């Protein structure tokens, strides 16, 4: 009974659209754009045409997620294990608050900060001329880390917070140095959180195109750009659908892999995405 509304929601907003996309992906583009019923795998056969975009996405997503992880873990560690109890909630709020503003706005803000009249102007003022920050891979990475950080921090924080502190004492008691304790106990037991954060950010990055467009100068194409183009500009819905389906399959593979890894290392625990 209680599952009724949730099930209805999922069917209407997830399953039905997914079926529609799947049906579109084996169809043909109508002469004037859109979809025309057919049964052909021509769209899938055409996927190599977007190989570059796929490749770029497959690099951007894991690298971006990794960069996020490297920044997020120390923050989550500090919040969960080091920060004074009474500061914890305030600091957590500070992590989440930027999320209340749209990512587009915040990314635009970075365009100005990194652009000619932002940090480079300041650097020029103290003598470092001609430093370009905007439209570089570094700027894209910065934008990604900035935009997705809370999604990485929160699951890691939760798993570290749940960690039984006595295990750390037991480890030290048994002769483990702080580094061994971190590697052998803390890190391993927080792996479910790490994997949740990593897959969450990575899956979102598979569809990301805004940040690379705004901060990377739009010179590099990603699957996300491709989808926007195909659906809105060239109105080739079947090809767009084929790409979307492929993307979903890749995401599923990523999730299963993450689940496997964290189950193996930290015992019988699953990755909880929600």
């Amino acid at each position, binding site marked *: 009974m209680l599952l009724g509304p949730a099930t209805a929601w999922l069917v209407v907003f997830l399953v039905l659209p997914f079926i529609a996309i799947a049906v579109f992906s084996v169809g043909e583009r109508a002469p004037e754009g859109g979809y025309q019923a057919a049964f052909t795998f021509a769209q899938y056969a055409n996927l190599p045409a977007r190989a570059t975009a796929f490749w770029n996405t497959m690099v951007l997503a894991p690298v971006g997620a990794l960069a996020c992880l490297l920044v997020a873990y120390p923050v989550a560690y500090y919040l969960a294990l080091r920060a004074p109890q009474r500061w914890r909630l305030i600091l957590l709020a500070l992590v989440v608050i930027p999320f209340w503003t749209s990512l587009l706005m915040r990314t635009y803000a970075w365009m100005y900060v990194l652009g000619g009249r932002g940090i480079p102007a300041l650097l020029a003022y103290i003598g470092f001329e001609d430093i370009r920050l905007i439209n570089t891979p570094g700027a894209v990475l910065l934008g990604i880390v900035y935009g997705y950080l809370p999604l990485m921090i929160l699951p890691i924080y939760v798993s570290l917070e749940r960690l039984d502190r*006595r295990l750390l*004492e*037991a*480890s*030290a*008691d*048994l*002769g483990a140095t702080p580094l*061994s304790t971190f590697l*052998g106990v803390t890190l391993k037991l927080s792996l479910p959180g790490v994997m949740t954060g990593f897959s969450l950010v990575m899956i979102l990055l598979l569809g990301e195109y805004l940040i690379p467009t705004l901060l990377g100068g739009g010179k590099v194409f990603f699957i996300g750009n491709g989808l926007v183009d195909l659906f809105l500009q060239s109105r080739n819905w079947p090809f767009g659908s084929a790409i979307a389906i492929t993307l979903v399959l890749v995401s599923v593979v990523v999730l299963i892999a993450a689940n496997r890894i964290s189950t193996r290392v930290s015992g019988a625990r699953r990755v909880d995405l929600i």
Partner: protein
Amino acid sequence: MTAVPDIEFRGVTKRYGAVTAVSGIDLAVPPSAFVALLGPSGCGKTTCLRMIGGFEQPSEGQVFIRGQDMAGTPPYRRPVNMVFQQYALFPHLDVEDNVAYGLRQARPRLSAREIASRAGEALEMVRLAGYGRRKIHELSGGQQQRVALARALVNKPAVLLLDEPLAALDKKLRTDMQIELQNLQREIGITFVLVTHDQEEALSMSDFVCVMNGGRIVQLGQPSEIYDEPADLFVADFVGKTNLLSGTVAGHSGDLVEVALADGTVIAARKRTALRQGEAVSVSLRPESLSLGARTSGPFKGIVRNRIFLGSTAEYAIEVQGIGTLLAKADHLIGHGNLFKPGEPVAIGFASGTPLAFAETKNNGANQRVEKHVEIIS
């Protein structure tokens, strides 16, 4: 005394902000002893244990392990191991890897073969051979307890610390583990320091009991001393069951004092400290020191209110006019049928020993220091 103590506290005080958890503790534990730190919660016993383990640093004073000052030595460099409350076993490792954890930390590294064989021995010692590949959550509470023991002992520590190790077990298992722990301690011959709030556990397992209250050591001695000769009212009340009767000092006769109880009865009692004429005192009467009889000419007469038959003995709650309810324990002699029934009048006398009289002090224990430097001589 020539042997270097395994553990020594010199003037150790621990404060958390304004709260003093442990205050001015002096204690020396000789090698190969089984010592229990006994006291109510908040008495500082766990803090003492954690200072030996290195998880807390004393605010004042020093902790020595085998003659070495431990100031600034982190837990991972101390030659002691702890069995944690609720065991703190690593959930992501199986039984054998839990036990081998300490061995894997050793530098220079031990060979894989040595690690496996020592872990196997340790598991055998706690009768868990063949359980090496089990997951922790597949084990029962008693088995987890034994894994925790094996994990601590495999490193051959100078001292084993046990923090309320049996608290999570049911009564039957607890009794079994008490015997097992005692045997284990005798077998391997290292010092065990046990923290417990359970006086029965402390008395039954250890060679020495260190009773703590309000951050101080109130009494230290062998279990029978603690029970028979409690240093003060707190110990008398905390260790074992006793009847505490209030009265005033009516007179002195030699080593004994005469105490007038509330109902006017005067009884002779031994004293622990000098007592003034007219001073308010509590007299401790152990239930088993009382004798019951229909005709016994005892100082008290009362009516049986309650009887708990325990097999070899029976406990009676007896209401005595003007004094209150007294708890008495009487041996049950098979075939004699000498059980009193509720409602029956009985006379109460003293079967053995002389009652002990203690000065009544408010906030007992916290303002009473019995000995300045307590040392066990074995």
